[in-house]
């Protein structure tokens, strides 16, 4: 068809139905992503956070697996054999050195697992103590954060959702606890709880965990939930004005349902991020207390108590301090950087 200039006639070919090939071209090839997938993708792009994540995974796996397969245990004094005099040659071994009876076994052709970091003053394999200490420190950090999360989430969401007098009372309590000097209170409470708990725990399952760790958890539960509660309250306050909450309320949903099904899932990124950042601070606090002698019960090691014990022999065995020091710093640093990465990846408001 000839096209005349200024003709208003349209080309009918342009209005033919699309062929299958053309339709295929228009299909969106990229699958739809969820919020979670999107965040993970952003997280993986962040090289520092990814490396830190792998460091944490490796350290955690090592702390879980190595104590199972390693031939020595954290409280086994290698020089002590029942019915025989104490063999002093096992005390204060330098790295990769062996005690007297082990030398004999090597001479007989047996293989003896080396003491990678040597032994301590009581003849305990230092490597396994560091690994075990890492395990304790990680576990304390993890569970303390869970406790903080549960209490903070409950109180914060109730305060935020109920508002009014409930909110006012809760937030005044939070203000006061927040302004308490936390470290001093932690030291005070754990030193007293330690004495109180010692007798009370005997014979129960909890006795195995040790009175000091339990008191540490109690202290965390009492003092450290406030910042989590503040954060979640703030989130809930802004979320509860959303239309879907109004819709749920209009449909007759009770408050508990709205909090659990609508509000909390929408604060999830904030919750995960601040829990991730809570773990290193809990590890920090635990090692600080262990250093002052208020941490885990002997002979159980934690990274802080290992560092503290090492101070006594610091002139002769400085590596005993440096090893746990490096491990603590590595854990705290990687968790912090990973937490920062999580925040950048999962907090959409900060992406602007």
């Amino acid at each position, binding site marked *: 068809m000839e096209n005349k200039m200024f003709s208003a006639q349209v080309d009918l070919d342009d209005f033919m139905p699309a062929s299958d090939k053309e339709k295929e071209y228009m299909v969106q090839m990229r699958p739809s992503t969820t919020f979670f997938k999107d965040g993970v993708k952003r997280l993986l792009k962040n090289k520092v956070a990814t490396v830190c994540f792998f460091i944490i995974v490796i350290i955690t796996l090592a702390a879980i697996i190595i104590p199972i397969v390693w031939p020595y245990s954290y409280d086994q004094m290698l020089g002590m054999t029942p019915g025989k005099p104490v063999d002093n040659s096992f005390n204060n071994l330098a790295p990769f050195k062996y005690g007297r009876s082990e030398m004999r076994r090597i001479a007989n052709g047996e293989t003896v697992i080396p003491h990678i970091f040597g032994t301590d003053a009581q003849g305990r394999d230092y490597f396994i103590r560091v690994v075990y200490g890492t395990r304790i420190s990680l576990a304390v950090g993890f569970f303390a954060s869970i406790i903080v999360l549960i209490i903070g989430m409950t109180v914060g969401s109730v305060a935020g959702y109920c508002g009014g007098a409930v909110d006012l009372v809760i937030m005044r309590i939070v203000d006061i606890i927040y302004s308490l000097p936390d470290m001093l209170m932690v030291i005070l409470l754990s030193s007293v709880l330690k004495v109180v708990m010692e007798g009370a725990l005997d014979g129960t399952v909890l006795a195995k965990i040790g009175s000091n760790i339990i008191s540490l958890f109690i202290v965390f539960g009492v003092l450290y939930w406030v910042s989590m509660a503040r954060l979640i309250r703030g989130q809930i306050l802004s979320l509860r004005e959303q239309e879907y909450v109004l819709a749920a309320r209009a449909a007759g949903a009770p408050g508990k349902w709205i909090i659990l099904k609508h509000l909390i899932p929408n604060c999830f990124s904030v919750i995960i991020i601040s829990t991730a950042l809570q773990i290193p601070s809990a590890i920090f606090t635990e090692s600080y207390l262990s250093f002052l002698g208020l941490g885990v019960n002997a002979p159980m090691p934690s990274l802080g108590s290992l*560092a503290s014990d090492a101070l006594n022999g610091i002139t002769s065995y400085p590596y005993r301090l440096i090893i746990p020091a490096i491990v603590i710093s590595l854990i705290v640093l990687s968790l912090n950087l990973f937490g920062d990465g999580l925040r950048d990846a999962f907090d959409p408001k900060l992406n602007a």
Partner: protein
Amino acid sequence: MNTKTLMYIVKRVLLAIVTVWIVITVTFFVMHAVPGGPFVGEKAVSESVQKAMEAKYGLDKPLGIQYITYLRDIVTKFDFGPSLKQRGRNVNDIIFDGMKTSAKLGVIAAFIALIMGIIFGAVAALRRNKLIDRIIMIITTAFVSMPSFIMGSLLLIIFAINLKWFPANGASKNGLTLPVLTLSLYPMAYITRLTRSSMLEVLGQDYIRTAKAKGVSGMKIVFGHALKNSLIPVITYFGPMLAGIVTGSLVVEQIFAVPGIGRAFVNSITGRDYPLVMGTTIVLATLIVIMNLVGDIMYKVVDPRITLE
């Protein structure tokens, strides 16, 4: 200063007073909840001696009366009673003696942290992404993630034991150098990072561009325009920094055997010297509360853009 700011200050001061009162109350009742009382664990004493001791320290009265007496003595006379373990000394004297050393330690550390932190932060911001910025950022990241007791112990190994530049004992001559260094490194690293990020933000502002456009010299822009405005976050950190130095001094004084109040506190806990525990907790806690209060108020006064609650 308008009435709103004044109201805020009054509110904060009241909260601080309530906090101190709660600290005193918690400390008192927690210490008295310890089973066995303060004399358990000492040499076995006869019933009558025990009675006499309790009467001497006022422990035979009901708990409520003891609490009121304790509170009254602190408020009116600033008196924390006698120490149980260091015979013949009052808790006040011990705190006062320790305070002289600790205050010196803390003030010098805070001063160094502020000055050096601001300088390093400004340099890092002005040389953004250059080698010196990278080096400063790596070092400060390492310092921020290292607990104070590890920092202190490492400095002890390096400078006191291997190099023998400074004594390991804090009570000797030049002995405060290493403790001061330990205490100042963390806040210094933190201030460096704060200054760097806020300086970068300020350098991107329009008024800096205007100043550049009208031909103000580089030095004048940095000192006259940028630095002054980028110090607001540093002022916010002032209170927490001093509070952190107080808590940090607990372990640092322990590591270097500095005869300060932090060491008195830790030793009193391990030695179960209850009046001393209460006294040092209350004094240190009050200090921290006051520092946070001053920091908060300064923050609101310095930057009028900040909206008050």
